[in-house]
């Protein structure tokens, strides 16, 4: 029996029992679409998760803290020697101590308050900073007051006295004005005095006892590319040794201004934290484990990513399980329908055998019927899923958008591969659930089948 005849006869047999076929197909439709929609929710979740990942920092960078820095006395100190030790750990590409401070910058009539990170100038390239204009810091900058600015920094410069806001219209990047100054060319000064560059308030105008703080003349050698990373976007970078010097100046100034606060400041406790760059993602966990055994506190974006992945994974498994149950039920429906069909057609099967149908002809006829049910159910189910998916995305049910976390993201995403897979899957379900009935039909004795009146 040729395949085309098998198909034609199977379709015919299905159409003979329209209602029964329709109901069985309906079962598969519900099963398929529930599984597709559940998976599409998971995919949408993953997509918004990937978007979030994009906005995170470099996953291969570990933030390492000395837990005893602020706590009880401990042997653990982060200094140049310990940094060199860390650099020797297998898989570590580079390491640098980091100190942060907050300064006032001024260029002409414009001022800005900027977070400054002091890092090892030499390591900047290893940490993967990407320059948009100018150059990165290198070893020669260690004796200079040279800076590399994050991409958002130029926008922070505002007319002095203007109302200050750091995150200057982040959300409409296209519409905002160009930076007021050209950071690479214009002359820029920096000071730890927060009043630097501001017009004196009237109440202070008579206060002439205060000596103005001498500002530092700085130079910006590079501007970083927009990487979506909040840890670089809004920071200015300078060599760590220069920043340390300035911090000492600042401490002296503050001591003179406000009096001594902390007697221990003079004591060398090393750095509070450092950054460790790993060679690749795979080495992150082993390195952080090693650092932890050394007594450091380690934080990496990977920890967050991993826990997110875990949550997303188990949620998807749950959704998938719900879908599978309904598809399983529809598989039982197919089997039941096919067994009914065999009882009904016992005689026909017998006749076909007697007039020359081979066992495989009989088997194929019944298997194909089951597959067609699965296939049709799959197609209709996918169409239905696209419909439901569109409704979900447009209506944005509140509890679902909570799950997919993040605004403007689709709640349900059905990629082509999902529809193709589910179609194959539903046909497979038909095939598997049709197998047992088909075997049964095949094994029917033709003689007893004919005798059935």
């Amino acid at each position, binding site marked *: 029996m040729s395949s085309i005849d098998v198909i034609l006869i199977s379709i015919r047999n299905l159409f003979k029992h329209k209602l029964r076929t329709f109901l069985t197909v309906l079962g598969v439709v519900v099963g398929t679409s529930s599984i597709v929609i559940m998976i599409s929710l998971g995919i949408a979740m993953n997509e918004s998760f990937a978007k979030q990942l994009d906005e995170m920092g470099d996953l291969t960078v570990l933030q390492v803290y000395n837990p005893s820095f602020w706590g009880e006395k401990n042997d653990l100190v982060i200094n140049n020697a310990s940094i060199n030790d860390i650099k020797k750990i297998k898989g570590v590409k580079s390491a640098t101590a980091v100190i942060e401070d907050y300064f006032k910058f001024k260029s002409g009539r414009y001022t800005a308050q900027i977070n400054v990170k002091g890092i090892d100038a030499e390591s900047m390239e290893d940490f993967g900073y990407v320059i948009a204009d100018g150059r990165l810091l290198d070893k020669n900058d260690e004796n200079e007051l040279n800076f590399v600015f994050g991409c958002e920094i130029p926008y922070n410069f505002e007319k002095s006295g203007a109302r200050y806001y750091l995150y200057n219209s982040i959300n409409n990047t296209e519409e905002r004005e160009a930076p007021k100054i050209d950071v690479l060319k214009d002359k820029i000064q920096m000071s730890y005095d927060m009043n630097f560059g501001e017009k004196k308030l009237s109440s202070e105008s008579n206060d002439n006892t205060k000596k103005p703080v001498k500002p530092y003349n700085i130079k910006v050698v590079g501007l970083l590319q927009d990487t979506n990373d909040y840890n670089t976007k809004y920071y200015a970078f300078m060599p760590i040794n220069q920043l340390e010097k300035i911090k000492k100046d600042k401490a002296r100034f503050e001591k003179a201004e406000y009096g001594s606060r902390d007697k221990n400041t003079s004591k060398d406790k090393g750095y509070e934290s450092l950054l460790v760059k790993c060679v690749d993602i795979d080495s992150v966990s082993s390195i952080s484990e090693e650092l932890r055994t050394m007594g450091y506190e380690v934080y990496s974006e990977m920890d967050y990513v991993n826990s997110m992945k875990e949550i997303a994974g188990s949620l998807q498994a749950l959704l998938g399980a719900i879908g599978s149950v309904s598809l399983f039920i529809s598989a039982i429906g197919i089997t039941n329908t096919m067994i009914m069909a065999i009882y009904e057609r016992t005689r026909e099967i017998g006749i076909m055998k*007697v*007039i020359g149908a081979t066992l495989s002809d009989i088997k194929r006829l019944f298997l194909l019927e089951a597959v067609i049910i699965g296939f049709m159910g799959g197609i209709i189910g996918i169409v239905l899923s696209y419909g439901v998916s569109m409704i979900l995305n447009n209506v944005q049910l509140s509890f679902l958008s909570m799950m997919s976390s993040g605004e403007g993201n689709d709640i349900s995403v059905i990629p082509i591969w999902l529809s193709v897979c589910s179609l194959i899957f539903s046909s497979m379900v038909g095939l598997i659930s049709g197998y047992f009935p088909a075997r049964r039909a095949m094994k029917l004795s033709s003689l007893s089948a004919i005798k059935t009146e």
Partner: protein
Amino acid sequence: MSIIQIKSLTKIYPVGNEKVTALDNISLEMEKGKIYCLLGTSGSGKSTLLNMMAGLEKPTKGQIIIKNSHIEKMNENQLARFRQKNIGFVFQSYNLLPAFTALENVTLPLIFKKIPKRIREKRAKEMLCAVGLKDRIKHTPAQMSGGQQQRVSIARAFVNNPDIIFADEPTGNLDTKTTLEMMDLITKISKENNQTLIIVTHDLEISEYADVIIHIRDGKVDSIEQVNKKMIEKI
């Protein structure tokens, strides 16, 4: 050279704890192109013999050799192929597929034989014309009378042009007039094509169409009677 050889065929059915011997050591030979009639009362074992020759039942003992092939040794698929090639069936209860038209019912054996659509439909139409159902081609069994259904069934049996036709009480459900028509038709076609026709019946009148009447009683061959055709024609 005989087309069918049956050697010491025995069939024993277990019925509860007892064993019923349906066929008891039967040996027969049948020649090509002749019409045979297995005549006997119900329960004589004639239908069992037919079923066994068609490979629908396995014998307990003995051999059935049709065209040099041992039927009793074949598996289901071999039997299916063998039936496709060599055997046509006419049943008492027609056994047509109710959802299919007359044409489709007749085409079915050719479909299993993988004959191309154009050829098999032409052949089936010719066959339906031959049995006088030219204007019933598109009818389903439910739309036809018993006689017409049996004609379709005869067309189906002959469409393959098999060497052997088995007819199991072919006229059991038909009235006398139709019975005679049907017997004329079936014997005429088989004679034309030099086919061996084996009819199972309990009806003496039908047995008169045969060249050889094999009387079956209690699972044994009672007697074999050669019919003189010319004498019947005179009567």
